[in-house]
């Protein structure tokens, strides 16, 4: 689902943007926590929230580790939660390679902090219902995830 489609959709119940700073390891994970709080307040199924929390956290850490800065946009529709992350950075040269479990371009600094196991993108794909990633070298990367909600 492209960005334009989502925002033209008048059934948007809630939408919010968060800035993510590259290299800010102290604040890393705060955006994922804030997204999670909104979802809990919205009374969304805790099992679905768990998957969203894991995927969002991994995506946020990727931006902190590898990009200059990024923006996470959360959009809630009656039947789904849409999260997209747009970052400014070096971009990903080979997406297929980046999706391989264990493949990582982490620096020593990043590994010392406990990140860089190479499981981020595969974890996101595993937890999201649909997942789309595009990238342009020297420009940045766009990640889109959709999580379907149960009917209640």
């Amino acid at each position, binding site marked *: 689902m492209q960005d334009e489609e989502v925002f033209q959709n008048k059934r948007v*119940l809630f939408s919010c943007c968060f800035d993510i700073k590259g290299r800010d390891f102290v604040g890393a994970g705060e955006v994922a926590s804030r997204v999670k709080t909104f979802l809990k*307040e919205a009374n969304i199924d805790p099992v679905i929230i768990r998957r969203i929390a894991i995927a969002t956290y991994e995506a946020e850490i990727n931006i902190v580790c590898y990009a200059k800065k990024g923006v996470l946009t959360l959009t809630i529709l009656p039947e789904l939660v849409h999260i997209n992350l747009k970052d400014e950075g070096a971009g990903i040269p080979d997406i297929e390679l980046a999706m391989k479990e264990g493949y990582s371009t982490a620096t020593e600094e990043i590994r010392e902090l406990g990140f860089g196991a190479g499981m981020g993108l595969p974890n996101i794909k595993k937890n999201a219902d649909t997942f789309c990633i595009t990238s342009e070298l020297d420009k940045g990367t766009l990640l889109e995830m959709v999580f379907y909600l149960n009917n209640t």
Partner: protein
Amino acid sequence: MENYFDILRVDQEKCISGTCHGGIHCIMTCPVEAIRVYEGHAILMEEKCIACGRCIRDCPDHSISAEDLTLEELKNYQYPVAIPSPALYGQFGRGIGPEKILGALKKLGFKDVFESAVGGELAGVATRLFLSQYKGPKPLISSACPAIVRLIQTRFPIFINQVIPVESPREIAAKEFRRTVIPNLKVSDKEVGIFYVAPCPAEMIAIKCPESIGPSNFNGSFPITQLYGNIFETLMSGDYEPHPSQINSVSVSWAAIGGEIRELEKRLLVGKEGSTIVVDGVRNVIKVLEEVENGQLKDIEFIEARACLRGCVGGALTVGDRYVAASKVRKLIREFKGKKRIKIEEVQDLYEQGFYSRPYPLKARPVVALGESRMEALKKMVERDRILKLLPGIDCGSCGAPSCRVLAEDIVQGRKEITDCIFKLREKVKDLAEEVLKWASKTPSSMP
């Protein structure tokens, strides 16, 4: 006097006439935002409260307290028994060991004393047996601290099935007393009253309110603070018989943090080294559970989580310094090193019969959602954010809520109004003043 859970009391007169007089101490110290100030006094929101006791500790006027019974009421039982939390051992001076403390406690009107520490050791063995057969999601979380159990029920219900299904040490101690001691007495079950001596309100409430965590084997409880004076006097008078203690290094270590995982780590039943952590303090536990929710701490298998800093010796209903008490517990651990320990084989049969297990599953009591249904919750969320943008965002507490975000939620839920914020009220006064100035500066063109 306002009463919550039949245990927590708020003395409204003390709130209003004290140094705080309707201020911000309790609302700011509560780690789960469960307190509000209304008409000059504190009110507790029962559904959010986890009974950790921070408010009891931090109120400068001691307006909040916990009480259940008086010592007089022990006379209603033929055979009243005291089961003290191991935190009690850290409450008295250097020369005063467990036998003297138990003896003096008994003198207050009990026919017998049985140590909750024994329940701790049994809980530890039962936990080892459970972990050796468990193959489900991790990390697993200790069930010993009822404030943390309540935190999980209300704010992290996703982890309900990761709370160890072993009963708490105090309940195991009560059950063990019934099983091993009562049959040898010449009294019926009904005539026996079993009373817990508690370091915290959470344990008192868990005993008093079966709907919270489950039914209790106790007939009631006493805060350590209530009995401390009497025990101290008895100790000074010397008019008591010391009562033999059954503790060892393992059981007494449950009084402070690190006690529960001590044996687990030693036996390495929880896998690789470094896969167990100890977290004390509600805000710290919240932080760690948030991290687990995000998928961090993947290698952690067991969390010993305690609401009070340093564990039960730091409970809100203890007397004296928690760090000194923890030091005394460490001394007892060294002193009681050689004492007899419980062996797994001794408890295996009873474990398999479910004797050490929590009799009912934990109920989720989520409180974070803003509405009963998703649509209602989302509508309120949007409205809450709209109101939040109008508020100053400095979290001053003057409205009686701990933060602007909480006030916005209270307004959406119909509990407060926007003019409860003194800055919004001031804005309205300023607008009015500017209007008055505007008209006052106008003179009719006909005047000289």
